[in-house]
């Protein structure tokens, strides 16, 4: 059965430049003098280091434990000695440092005990745990932990498994060569993934500019029922996960949703290969294929240990003299490396040497003329020029309303923009600003919540205290208020009832407290009249009695106007 292809809108066709790096087979990069293995190499938290400086490690030994279920483990890429566990600069656009394990290889490449698992008799749960502990993440560039993608969704199982061999970015050929040379390993990995997901069918999408890979994979899958190799039209970004799923199944997965919810999930061919090695050979993910191309003498693909410094690799391909910078990833979505002594990570599919001749600098940015070229190129079917205005004006609410988070940052809009506007930079700015705002809002929400809780607590404490006092003075009230009642003007029953007992109690308490305070004051404070002559004291007494009379007069309200 040949399934019909669907189309995705937009896209561009830059020159592919694949031939440069496909002339030679995959070579093994030599063991570098140092390996710098970042502990965080996938979404969802930084694994905790399991080793300390000075410790010996074997190849494949776990050196980073996954933090909860949301990240994958990290392993020693070779045997040797741990020199340090310290923050090092990572190859990431942020240019931030993060904890890395620095290993000095002993050159022996001694493996841990590798045990193969007979997957057919294992439950999906066990196998997912195995993938997590083997450090399997998406090798297409996003490095999302594969075991999470295989979790059954709320709305059922994964019916269709998509295997991504499209490799749409210009220059990159690591997947192409992997398919040509290790088709059997890929097919074995596919079988394991299919078993875990219990998928009915598997569609392998490969751009039609890779006829060799298509032929080899077709031959390798000829015996397996339910696996189809589907050539897809060469148009960037056909290898984008959402675009490939759309092309092969017609399903569109919106931002923030998992393919699983739609009964489909997508894995890179390299990931399938590493799944095979983890399950069948017991080898965790410690190396990957990296394309080294661009402005170099000997472009090609290399099997590289994770943690290998990039400058060690560059020695193998010899960048030409006019190289002005290095790009990690492809020219459409890659980023300029700040330095070349940074390590290769599981995400590093390509290192490109750039020169002004290969990647000419763009002209000056002009105003947007709303020509709509970006809209026609956008595979997410957004209105990039509108998002540009909103991002530029920091009108983030509108940007979100117009779907800025659906932007996959593929770069098609900026590629076609006649005004040379670096559109994707504007979107990155808007998205990160919004995420920061969201974090700040969450923080201030939490602070407000704390404040409100504290107020409530205080109110409650006050009420409880009052209740306690009321109970305590219930007797006192009887003693103070009740005897006073007959002495005062005969109270009507209503007024007695209407008086809140708490108020009565309070008044009594206050009166008692004042009396106590006065008594205390009188008892403690020496009076300035104590040591006076009798005459003076008599005078004072006289004055005091006069004052008392006046007070008495003031207390009794005048019966009638005087």
């Amino acid at each position, binding site marked *: 059965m040949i399934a019909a292809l669907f189309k995705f809108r937009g896209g561009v066709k830059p020159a592919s430049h694949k031939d440069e790096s496909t002339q030679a087979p995959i070579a093994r990069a030599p063991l570098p003098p140092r390996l710098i293995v970042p502990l965080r190499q996938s979404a969802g938290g930084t694994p905790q280091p399991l080793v300390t400086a000075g410790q010996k490690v074997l190849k494949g030994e776990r050196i980073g434990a996954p933090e909860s279920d949301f990240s994958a483990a990290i392993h020693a890429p070779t045997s040797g000695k741990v020199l340090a566990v310290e923050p090092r600069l990572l190859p990431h656009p942020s240019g931030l440092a993060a904890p890395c394990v620095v290993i000095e290889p002993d050159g022996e490449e001694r493996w841990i005990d590798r045990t193969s698992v007979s997957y057919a008799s294992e439950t999906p749960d066990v196998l997912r745990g195995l993938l997590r502990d083997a450090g399997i993440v998406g090798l297409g560039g996003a490095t999302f932990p594969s075991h999470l993608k295989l979790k059954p969704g709320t709305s059922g199982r994964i019916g269709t498994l998509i295997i991504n061999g499209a490799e749409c970015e210009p220059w990159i050929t690591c997947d192409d060569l992997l398919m040509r040379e290790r088709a059997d390993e890929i097919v074995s990995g596919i079988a394991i993934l299919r078993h875990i997901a219990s998928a009915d069918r598997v569609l392998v999408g490969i751009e039609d500019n890779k006829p060799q890979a298509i032929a080899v994979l077709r031959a390798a899958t000829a015996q397996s029922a339910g696996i189809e190799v589907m050539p897809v039209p060469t148009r960037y970004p056909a290898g984008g996960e959402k675009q490939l799923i759309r092309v092969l199944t017609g399903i569109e997965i919106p931002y923030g949703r998992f393919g699983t919810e739609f009964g489909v999930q997508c894995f890179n061919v390299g990931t399938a290969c590493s799944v095979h090695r983890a399950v069948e050979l017991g080898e965790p993910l410690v190396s990957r294929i990296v394309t080294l191309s661009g402005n170099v003498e000997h472009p090609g693909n290399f099997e590289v240990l994770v943690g290998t410094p990039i400058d060690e690799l560059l020695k193998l391909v010899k960048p030409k003299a006019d190289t002005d910078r290095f790009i990690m990833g492809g*020219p459409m979505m890659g980023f300029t490396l700040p330095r070349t002594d940074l390590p290769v990570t599981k995400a590093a599919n390509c290192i490109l040497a750039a020169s002004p001749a290969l990647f000419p600098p763009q002209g000056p940015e002009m105003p947007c003329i709303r020509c709509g070229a970006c809209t*026609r190129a956008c595979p997410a079917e957004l209105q990039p020029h509108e998002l540009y205005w909103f991002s530029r004006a920091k009108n983030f609410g509108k940007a979100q309303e117009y779907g800025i988070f659906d932007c996959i940052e593929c770069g098609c809009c900026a590629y076609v923009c006649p005004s040379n506007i670096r559109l994707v930079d504007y979107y990155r700015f808007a998205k990160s600003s919004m995420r920061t705002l969201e974090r700040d809002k969450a923080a201030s929400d939490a602070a407000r919540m704390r404040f409100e809780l504290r107020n409530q607590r205080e109110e409650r404490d006050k009420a409880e205290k009052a209740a306690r006092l009321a109970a305590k003075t219930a007797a006192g009230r009887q003693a103070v208020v009740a005897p006073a009642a007959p002495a005062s003007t005969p109270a009507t029953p209503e007024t007695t009832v209407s008086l809140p007992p708490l108020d009565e109690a309070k008044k009594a308490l206050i009166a008692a407290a004042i009396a106590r305070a006065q008594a205390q004051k009188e008892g403690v404070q020496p009076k300035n009249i104590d040591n006076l002559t009798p005459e003076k004291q008599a005078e004072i007494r006289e004055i005091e009695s006069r004052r008392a009379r006046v007070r008495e007069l003031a207390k009794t309200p005048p019966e009638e106007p005087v």
Partner: protein
Amino acid sequence: MNGSPHLHLPISVRLVMLKVLAALLPGIAVYVWFFGAAILVQIALASAAALAGEAAMLRLRGKPVGLFLADGSALVTAWLIALTFPPIVPWWLTVSATLFAIVVAKHLYGGLGQNPFNPAMVAFCISIIAFPALMSQWPAVGFTDFAAQMGVVFQSQSPQDAVTMATPLDALRTSLHTPEARATVAGILGSHATFGNIGGKGWEWIALAYLAGGLWLLQQRIITWHVPVAFLGVLALIATGFSLGNPERYAGPTFHVITGGAMLGAFFIATDPVSGATTPRGKLIFAAGIALLTWIIRTFGAYPDGMAFGVLLMNLCVPLIDMGTQPPVFGHKDGKRDGAP
């Protein structure tokens, strides 16, 4: 930031504008063939005024003069002004109208990419309102003598009836509206010297040349099909409906589509990306609105051609049209949009 992509198509605003200018050349050539070289002088006058106004405004606004002067956008405005004005209009009107377009309609609103109104159409509308007589002074079909034309343009001699005449649209409306005429559309079109086979002698060929240039722009993907198709289609549709209902009173679709500024407008004016709608459905609505307004003003209004007013009025509606016609985003075809960060 200087992130991805690291690749860029060899394309620029300048290239887009130059292609638009190139697409106008066939129309200009046919124009010269039928009405003499005066139009070239007008184009030169408008271009000089536009570049001068542009340079002065860029300098005042502290923008890089060379960069923006070279983008070609001022020249597109200038050429459209020259091509929509009568070719023997006095030089000072061309110059002042162009300056108004560049200084007020373009730069006072923020320059390239910011103007809500089509600058060339602003120039046309203020001129036809302020100087209706001069703006109706079209050369007669045989009046191609360059020296005589220049005499009119530089006002060393006053235009006589022999050298000027009304445009087909003007003639048609005047004939239909003057009480003594009691003419029918067929009668006027058949009798009058102004009218060629379809939409005015000479003008129908110029229109076809504009059509050729416009189709080339379409092939070059500088413009999309939406605006020309919707504009010409709706204009033809309305004209067909009314002329079927009362053929003596209303001109037919071919006349409306070929005559006046229809073809130039369909491919070169209503397609201005800056002041037009941007979404596919929005472009259809925008162009259909212009067609409707053009037909109404042509048929019932006081001005000979309604295209310019139609464009400006629809320019006003663009923000609303764009807002109301946002197409669904990938994965949100069900109409819901939930994009939390």
